[in-house]
């Protein structure tokens, strides 16, 4: 006979309102204009995207703002086939680190614009080194998903 143990069901729902700060505010405003802003560390000269208030390597305030390229290459990627709590994009999806031309770190976003259900075809089309370009959604909200995804350039 299976034992059943009593459990107490309880839900917690907490609303949050996060301060965006001036750096991400400017970055998000740029997304509305189809611009991907980066900024440069005056000490190590690294061009970082998204931009930062300070360099995580050198701990100094970041310097010049530069518009990053909207093209780059896939460094690594994964597919998600299962829904995860709170994810704004429903699976299947491809998360990828993308090296945007002229920057010195990898940018995390989605790869899309191709049939995500055909895994054999995906492996042919998506590899480390595959060139991709940002595809923008029509209605901008000033958030990460104003870039819908990066699409392989054929």
């Amino acid at each position, binding site marked *: 006979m299976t034992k059943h143990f009593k459990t107490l069901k309880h839900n917690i729902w907490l609303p949050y309102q996060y301060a965006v700060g001036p750096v991400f505010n400017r970055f998000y405003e740029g997304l509305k204009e189809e611009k991907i802003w980066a900024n440069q560390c005056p000490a190590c000269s690294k061009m970082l995207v998204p931009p930062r208030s300070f360099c995580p390597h050198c701990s100094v305030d970041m310097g010049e703002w530069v518009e990053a390229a909207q093209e780059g290459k896939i460094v690594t990627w994964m597919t998600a086939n299962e829904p995860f709590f709170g994810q704004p994009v429903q699976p299947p999806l491809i998360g990828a680190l993308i090296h945007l031309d002229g920057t010195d770190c990898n940018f995390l976003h989605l790869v899309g614009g191709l049939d995500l259900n055909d*895994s054999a075809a995906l492996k042919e089309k998506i590899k480390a080194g595959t060139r991709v370009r940002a595809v923008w959604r029509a209605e901008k909200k000033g958030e990460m998903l104003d870039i819908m995804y990066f699409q392989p350039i054929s």
Partner: protein
Amino acid sequence: MARAVAIIGVGQTKHGRRNEVTYPDMVREAVQAVFAETGLDPKDIDGIVCGTMPSMMEGVALTHFYFADALGAVGKPMMKTETCGTTGMSLAHTGYYWVASGMADLVLVVGSEKMYEGDSQATMSTVMEPFYLRPFLTGAPGVFSIQAQQWMARYKIPEEKSREAAAKISVDHHRDAHDNPYAHIKVDLTLEDVKNSRVINYPIRFWDVCPNSDGACAVIFASEDQAKKMSLKPAWVKGLGFCGDEYWYGDSDKVAWQCAMIAAKQAYDLAGISNPRRELNVAEIYNPFTWIEMLHYECFGFSEPGRACDDVLKGVFARGGELPCDPSGGVLCTNPIGATALIRVAETALQVTGQAGAHQIEGAKLGLAHGLGGVSQFNGLMILGSEL
């Protein structure tokens, strides 16, 4: 190193779905086990260290208040340490520091998690901030899939070879877990079972992934005087290391993985280890995913860069191999996260003192325990030996 420190006893709960007990009672089970093992009782303990994953996992904020009675902490100093998956290793380090400093002689260290009571992957997603990372990394599997693919691409490892090696790791660990009385998932699998299981995040499939577990682990750290006074088999702390990367996932190289390599070097330097593959007798690697275990073999100097798959397929890290890794079945079979890295420490202590029972590695004298945490951001290690 500061004052010599030993582990004089470990206690684990049965790990698995533990709906029959409340969370504090499960914590008490591990505490009672370590007291039974050592013959000590709460009045002997100078201080208590405990930790878990983020509060969202438990639905109770700051669980050290909730667990204080179960830990025997009333009237004593208590510290909580929390570093995501690395929590168990940070707990061990905290206990070590407390004794090594001379401020305590006997410290009780306890890690715990009750993952079936909440939504573990939702909790993992909250480790990422909502500004940038959270929409794109789906819980822990997403993070580790992307890292595994980067490793394969960097060293041009054929997918079939890495798939075969990862499957062997899964088959070996799930079989080894039969010999560990505390392990959660014990199952006989074939390579084909693993390779044909459903894809969670490509290339990671169901049997490449650790489970949710409920469970707790307790370890007592002692000063040299106390350890020598008692008729127990001490596991001496020979070295430790801990290192972190930048927070944002794209800012650091996760293949030639600096925080893993630096943490290992710190621990090896303290322990006087120059050739870890030859000098270590056993390692308990934090292996929530099969591919990540192989990546660590390279970062820790067990394998040449890009060659871990070859070594796995040759059986180097299997029981009976040159350097057996995770003879307990590892994280892949048992994963109450706040306890998981502390279980690596406890298992290594059992191995180097010859007390691991059916999964004992014959003659093990020097072992490595490991913890990994955050969005692949932290690595921590502890080297334990049978001799001071």
